[in-house]
């Protein structure tokens, strides 16, 4: 099986596996207690916090661990809104945010707040002048923008958006789940969210960072864990493994990014050459190094995924027939690109070039067969 779905989850990094097994033995005690084994767990937790904070460009005391990237986003968005209640009740988001951001926005709306959605170009990049104009308006509490889109890989102008937010005195929540561990975090965020399993750490570890001076109040009942920002007992071994993975990724990223990005360039160039009627989606240059999305005309996404699975390729799709909602991806819709026949290829660390060669070899015939079944010549 060739695994081409790293954007869903990156396989566990060997450094994380090793750290996890070691920490399960020595880091199991309650880090809030005062005896020897507890102090050891506390030491491991805070060391991991310092290491992750350094790679992400945060201070250790700004950073808390959550149980997932989704929880980090929920807490980040709702906590920032709570902290700014007196300044306003208006939230500004891009149309292509991850569903965790949009669902948190939905909760805010349900509680009487308002939400403004900023559209994107055909490339998936947010309309920056509109975003800047929206955050400068009266009564804006919080703005949110992702570092990179999870479905099409397009990088967002976070530094520029952060500058507009700073000028307006509005905190910016940045969802860095798809880029953390791969690219440097752009400057200017007020609240940052990320997810360890996306960079090769274990599942169940998210990161929430709240910049010093940012007003933030937990939307949950009070709890003393994780600098009072996240409720519940810390998973110290998983956090230690997440830090080991991030450290390793940061060290490898320059060389591996260049390799993966060249493979993505090849897919972007080859797919339209070998498959007729294909639209390659997302920004060709300002993009994540490992992710490429394309849509094939006259093909249903589910059939395409099933055939690719049979041929030994794991990919994902934003087409409606592959989603539980029967709606196409809101990202593809907002971009105005083809939503059917959609395939997202995202390359994990260390993928053999041969897997990409074979993918490009089998794809034309699979698309032809699916089209034939639908009666397309």
């Amino acid at each position, binding site marked *: 099986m060739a695994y081409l779905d790293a954007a869903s989850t990156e396989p566990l990094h060997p450094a994380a596996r090793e750290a996890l097994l070691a920490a399960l033995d020595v880091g199991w005690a309650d880090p809030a207690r005062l005896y020897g084994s507890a102090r050891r767990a506390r030491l491991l937790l805070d060391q991991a916090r310092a290491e992750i904070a350094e790679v992400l460009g945060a201070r250790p005391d700004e950073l808390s661990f959550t149980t997932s990237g989704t929880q980090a986003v929920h807490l980040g968005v709702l906590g920032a809104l709570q902290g700014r209640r007196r300044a306003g009740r208006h939230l500004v988001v891009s149309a292509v945010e991850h569903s965790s951001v*949009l*669902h948190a926005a939905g909760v805010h709306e349900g509680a009487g707040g308002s939400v403004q*959605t900023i559209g994107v170009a055909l490339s998936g990049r947010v309309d920056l002048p509109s975003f800047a104009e929206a955050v400068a308006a009266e009564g804006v509490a919080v703005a949110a923008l992702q570092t990179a889109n999870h479905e099409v890989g397009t990088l967002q102008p976070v530094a520029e958006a952060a500058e507009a937010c700073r000028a307006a005195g509005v905190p910016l929540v940045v969802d860095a789940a798809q880029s953390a561990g791969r690219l440097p975090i752009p400057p200017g965020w007020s609240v940052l969210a990320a997810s360890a399993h996306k960079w090769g750490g274990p599942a169940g570890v998210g990161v929430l960072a709240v910049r010093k001076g940012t007003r933030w109040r937990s939307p949950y009942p009070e709890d003393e864990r994780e600098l009072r920002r996240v409720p519940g007992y810390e998973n110290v071994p998983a956090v230690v493994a997440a830090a080991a993975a991030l450290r390793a990724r940061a060290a490898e990223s320059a060389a591996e990014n260049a390799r993966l990005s060249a493979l993505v360039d090849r897919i972007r160039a080859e797919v339209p050459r070998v498959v007729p009627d294909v*639209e390659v989606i997302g920004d060709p240059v300002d993009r994540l190094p490992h992710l490429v999305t394309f849509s094939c005309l006259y093909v*249903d996404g589910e059939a395409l995924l099933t055939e690719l699975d049979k041929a030994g390729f794991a990919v994902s799709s934003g087409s409606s*027939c592959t989603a539980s909602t029967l709606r*196409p991806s809101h990202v593809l819709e907002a971009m105005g690109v083809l939503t059917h026949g959609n395939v997202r290829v995202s390359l994990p660390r260390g993928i053999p070039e041969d897997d990409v060669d074979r993918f490009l070899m089998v794809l034309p015939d699979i698309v032809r067969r699916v089209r034939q079944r639908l009666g397309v010549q």
Partner: protein
Amino acid sequence: MIWRKKSPEPPAEAPAPVVPSAALTIDALGRKCPIPIIMLAERVGEVPVGAVISVLADDPAAFTDIPAWCRLKSHQHVESYELPRGGWAIHVRRQY
């Protein structure tokens, strides 16, 4: 509150929008994408260049995908009109 391009439901008392006539109407109501687009691609040659085809479709994907098809195939997406019973009449002008 996933962002959607679809315009909000018109108020019940509002008159139904007048949908201009078209040279050819393709009824793809109840058909899932990509079928409405396959039907459109098959029949676009049946009307003269410059004429308008109306595709009736209610799969939400068609609302995005037919204009995207026009862009890819260099035809013109004229307008999408909401139908009183759900779905849209998506008007496409043959350009070549």
